[in-house]
């Protein structure tokens, strides 16, 4: 039964990815004017337009082009950028554009997840262990504030404090060759802290809610009434049922990180994939937008999928069906 649930969930995930790819492709189709027109811009004459359309294959029906594009995406070859960059001859392939930036973004996200998740979990658990205490109320309030302020506010304040006032950390992150781990952390410090603060709030709050939810359930009450020691109740009774929601929370927050990175990369000028996407949106470089969008959405969908599968796997009631 549990296998069937997981397989079904994976199937849904794949279907969603296909639907996402259709959406991204459709976005290019509703453009006023087509790719050829954007690429030629001011130089467009009817003849050159037609020629370029033929060359790009735009004269064929949209469905065929969608399947071609989809297959190329699956083979990790998303085609060419519409524009030349850095004076290179001919258009740059999207793959070249993306490769390094994807690495940068992945590195940043991994560091953030590695730092934020454990700390936030501990903070959230502590808040749930001592509900309504001063500590709990402080955590709840601070995390609420962190969650409701815009990312760029956090970043602005951090830059103001650590770069402008104290002069400790760099505010623009364009270096991507690091001398050592310490140097890397130094260069990336501000983006890391901004993203961490953003994720902290989510994880700590949801962890607290999940644990409190379990702790207020009747069987825990029963365990307390039976006079079981506190440690025993938490470890034996509560923990197995808390793992599932917490795992879920972590995966969802990492998925959130994938999109939260957009603003942070923009403000710090970080050469990552989200920044590339934003710049391409400005230039309406659709192949790059599609490829970046597809990568980010895929990561997001996969993390949500992982969250669901993990919560199926770690749910004791599903693991031992009656």
């Amino acid at each position: 039964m549990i296998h069937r649930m997981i397989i079904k969930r994976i199937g849904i995930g794949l279907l969603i990815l296909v639907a996402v790819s259709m959406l991204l492709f459709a976005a290019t189709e509703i453009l006023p004017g087509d790719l050829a027109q954007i690429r030629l811009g001011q130089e467009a004459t009817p003849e050159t337009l037609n020629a370029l359309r033929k060359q790009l294959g735009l004269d064929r029906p949209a469905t065929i082009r969608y399947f071609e594009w989809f297959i190329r995406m699956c083979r990790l070859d998303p085609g060419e950028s519409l524009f030349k960059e850095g004076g290179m001859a001919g258009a740059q392939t999207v793959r070249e554009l993306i490769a390094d930036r994807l690495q940068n973004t992945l590195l940043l996200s991994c560091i953030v997840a590695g730092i934020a998740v454990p700390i936030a979990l501990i903070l959230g658990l502590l808040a749930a262990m001592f509900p309504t205490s001063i500590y709990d109320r402080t955590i709840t309030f601070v995390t609420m504030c962190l969650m409701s302020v815009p990312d760029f506010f956090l970043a602005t304040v951090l830059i103001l404090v650590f770069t402008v006032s104290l002069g400790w950390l760099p505010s623009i992150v364009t270096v991507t060759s690091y001398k050592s781990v310490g140097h890397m952390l130094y260069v990336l410090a501000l983006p890391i802290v901004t993203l961490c603060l953003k994720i902290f709030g989510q994880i700590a709050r949801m962890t607290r809610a999940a644990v409190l939810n379990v702790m207020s359930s009747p069987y825990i009450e029963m365990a307390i009434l039976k006079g079981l020691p506190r440690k025993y109740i938490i470890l034996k009774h509560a923990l197995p049922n808390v793992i599932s929601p917490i795992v879920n929370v972590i995966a969802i927050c990492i998925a959130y990180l994938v999109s939260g990175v957009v603003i942070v990369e923009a403000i710090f000028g970080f050469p990552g994939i989200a920044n590339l996407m934003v710049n391409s949106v400005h230039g309406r470089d659709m192949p790059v937008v599609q490829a970046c969008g597809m990568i980010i959405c895929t990561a997001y969908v996969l993390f949500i999928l992982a969250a669901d599968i993990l919560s199926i796997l770690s749910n004791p009631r599903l693991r031992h069906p009656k």
Partner: protein
Amino acid sequence: MGAGSMNITSENKTNAHVAVFEFEGRPAAPIKREVKISVPGKIAIAIVLFWVAMCFVGPLVAPYREADIVADQTFAPAGESCSPFRKGVCSFHLLGTDYLGRDVFSRVLYGSRTTMGISVAATLLAYVIGVTFGITAAIRGPKLDMVLSRINDVFISIPSIMLGLVVIAAVGTSIPILIVTAGAIYSTTVFRLSRAFAMDVMVTDFVEAARARGEGLWWMLYREILPNIVMPLATDFGIRLIYIVLFIASLSFLGLGVQPPVADWGGLVRENIQGIAYASWAPIAPALAISSLTISINLIVDEMSAKSGGKLAKSLLK
């Protein structure tokens, strides 16, 4: 529940001969629902009211006009700013000047109108779309529900900022496009919530009774379902508004939202971001404005859901 017991007590008071309900040791019925608002809650309400008022009277109160360049000094600190070129030409700026020498305070006041106007319009749109489809899915049988829910699943599993970027890449940006985009994107969550709430209501006895009476679609909607899902949805309205404010601000911050010279809080931060180096108020003030608004709405929502028993807060976490 509260309304029911209230009726009984008022009946007792007016008709003394109806003694059926009088018995020894009856627990005190909740006659009046006491509305106690905590101090942070009151401050939050005051801040939100302030910004709402500024939406309407901001341009009247603002010392300078939105796009007027009023000082020679850019990124001037708060207070009196004197021109470095023209002797004796000084002007007062509560929060200093921005990167072109415009008055930051005035621009933030003007920005409240743009940011909140767009956000509220988008949230309303999200509610119209989401609630309509959500209730339709709940009422009109499992087949339509299946189709609508699957379509919704697709949209909900794309990060909202990604959807926004793709739409803007395709059709460009303008205020109507922003409203429709944000409204459509956030209607997915509203759909899920209102469908879930409506589903809960659909299985209750009073809906069954209404069905048995042979009530029509509109009666079911307006008399049975809407009154029962309005409160939880109202709380969610606040949360959704926060998300949409942040969404619009983020797009504007990326330069893909409201276009200059129209002032908008996200855009104000973007255009003045260089001012951080001079510790100017220009990028900080609009960011603070957004934060004060979103945190306040969040506090009010917390206050409301604490009153409604926290059941809603749990359902929102999903």
